[in-house]
């Protein structure tokens, strides 16, 4: 009983400030950097690749929205606690879904995003190769003439 109650309470504790965010003062790390420049750099890079869910096409590093501030706080706190940026991203994805990450992962739904560049590369290569091939043909014609 107690075992599953604790994570639920923890989850509630997290949900509560989100729902009441407009009245709450921003979390400490929403507008404050980490002291360690290396960690802050990690956090900054990560925040630029996370979507602000309440905004239109902005990362959480570019937004005044209270929710973006909360998410910045989460990211900085977790990075400061020693998590790697990938772990933080995983955690946010498990919480908010793939939508939160601007970095699409190869999956059943996103594979065309990664196949197209390869197709384009092959296509571009073919077009150029055909040009070279044709040039040799032209030379032969020139020689014959």
């Amino acid at each position, binding site marked *: 009983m107690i075992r599953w109650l604790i994570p639920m309470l923890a989850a509630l504790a997290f949900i509560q400030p989100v729902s009441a965010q407009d009245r709450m003062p921003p979390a400490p790390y929403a507008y404050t950097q980490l002291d360690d420049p290396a960690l802050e750099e990690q956090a900054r890079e990560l925040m630029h690749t996370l979507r602000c869910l309440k905004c239109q096409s902005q990362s959480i590093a570019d937004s005044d929205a209270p929710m973006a501030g909360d998410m910045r706080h989460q990211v900085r706190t977790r990075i400061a606690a020693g998590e790697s940026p990938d772990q933080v991203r995983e955690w946010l994805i498990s919480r908010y879904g793939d939508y939160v990450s*601007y970095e699409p992962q190869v999956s059943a739904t996103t594979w065309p995003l990664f196949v197209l560049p390869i197709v384009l590369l092959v296509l571009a290569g073919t077009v150029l190769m055909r040009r070279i091939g*044709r040039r040799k043909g032209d030379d032969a014609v020139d020689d014959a003439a």
Partner: protein
Amino acid sequence: MIAEIGLAALWLGAALAVLQLLGGFLGAREQGSELTPLVRPAAMLQALLCAVSFGALVYAFAVTDLSVELVATHSHSMKPLAFKLSGAWANHEGSMLLWITVMALAGGLIALIEHRLPSRMMMATLGAQAFVAVGFYLFILLSSNPFKRLSPVPADGNGLNPLLQDMGVSFHPPTLYIGYVGLSVAFSFAVGALLTRNVTPEFARVMRPWVLGSWIFLTIGIAAGSYWAYYELGWGGWWFWDPVENASLMPWLAATALLHSASVLAARDALRTWTIMLGVIAFSMSMLGTFLVRSGILTSVHAFAVDPERGSFILILLALYIGGALVLFALRASTIAEGERFALFSREGALVVNNVALSSILGIVLLGTLYPLLTEAFDVRVSVGPPYFNPVSAIFFLPMLAILAVGPLLRWRTDSFRRIRLPVIIIAVVTIAVLALVLALTEIGILPLLGLAMSVGIAIASFMPLRGRNILRTPLPIWGMCVAHFGVAVALFGVAADTAFQQERLVAASPGDVIEIGPWEARMTSVSPVAGPNWTAMQGDLLVSYEGGPVRDAHPQARSFWAPQGETSEVALLTRWNGQLYVALGNMADDGRWQLRLWWKPFVTYIWYGGLLIAFGGMLALLGRVIGDVRRRSAELREDRRRADEAELAAS
């Protein structure tokens, strides 16, 4: 009354467009048509009518005529006059009226001045122009009437979104729209050439100024939009790969490709089908951009489905025009004879690489922009952002930059490496030297590193085509190319330097605090309230100095607008030759201190200087082409007159 005049003018314009459509396409046939003489006047009169209509809307906004619904919902009597005027096009209906007005002006202009092409092709071109215009007239008149009256008349208007109350954004949409719509002219010429089987160098020469012109406007529009986002959003970002930005980038990419392939067609009669194809794609991207921004589909696919009238209308137009043009292309492409051939190692070959790379980047941006919309329709939400666009587009962008450095040195048709060995070695050595130097001195990412090195290489390479030329006798278009390519180097340098070396400080400060950021030192002296015509603000007062130099003032503001309500950040920008200090004031923290955000952005301004240089290069090229055309025309006139005189002499 004025509003009714505007609406009547619009209906008359639509009727004339139908006349132009019929007359144009009938006149394009072998046997011609009685309507043919009416086509050109119809196009010119439409330009006048649309100008009247647009003038009427601007007037309604200028005097804040609240009985017009659009004014009541988007303007406010207390707004500064400049923003009242720009409010006329800062909304859906007004911007569509602006679109059709620019289109009518462009159509009127080609009807007035363009007499070089065969008459049948000209008729087909004007017919195609009217075909596109009719759709947009119908769209405005049936689903987005800007002159709709409102009863009862409200006491005051709703005002304009505070983010849009800014000089930058006032000129951003008209600039982009002129670019978008200019491409409609290229599209019409391409359709005209296809219909009458006239894909010739002459066609490319006639189309080129229009492509150049729209490309210049698109370049300026994108640069201005990027700078607006940079200083207005308050977080120091200048490009977000946001769908709205991509909507303007895609036509630009297509227009850039078209510009280069049209040059090949004009100079060498090669790449015929490809140029036509790009003409169709470029305008398709313009319409797609309009659809993305105007249909509401970006907010959410589901929001679009709830109120689909306008969106579906544009979607149908889009399918009709793009689909129609592609079908026509498929039917006629095989009848276009292959143009002149060329070796891969030639100017044409380099331009083919440029075109392939630009089209690939266009494909990637298109997919990355549309794919999330597609999956959202199936209730799977994915985000595609900078971590995708940056590296994937770089795969094609970097080789293209290498070709950009070397291509202009090559001769048409065929060339040998031996001839350009020396300049290529110089460029390569400089690039590698910069690369090694930056690598030794700093630790930066691979893309900014390559960007920095290549920007220096391209900067040198961009002026190499002038080598061995008489500077004073070099044609303007060559100068234009050099300046535009140099602009690419400058912008690339700004992008790479800002990405690699920017510094960020987020602090909570109270008056008296000193904040150090990079070479700057900022002392906050006070925070005080200030008021404007339709806003109040908290203003921070800071004294800043660069490396202990002279002290300068910075006054970032956090503004609150009341009609409509909204908050914006007015950042303080301190510009030096080597970058900008960016200061934004946030909210008050609960302990009474103020949130301050500071960025030192080395060479960030070079991004927009580069954009302006690119546009300036385009202007030089355009000027050179127009002067050339005028000279040729007057020379022909003189020749005709001389012949007439001789004939007269012989007769007497």
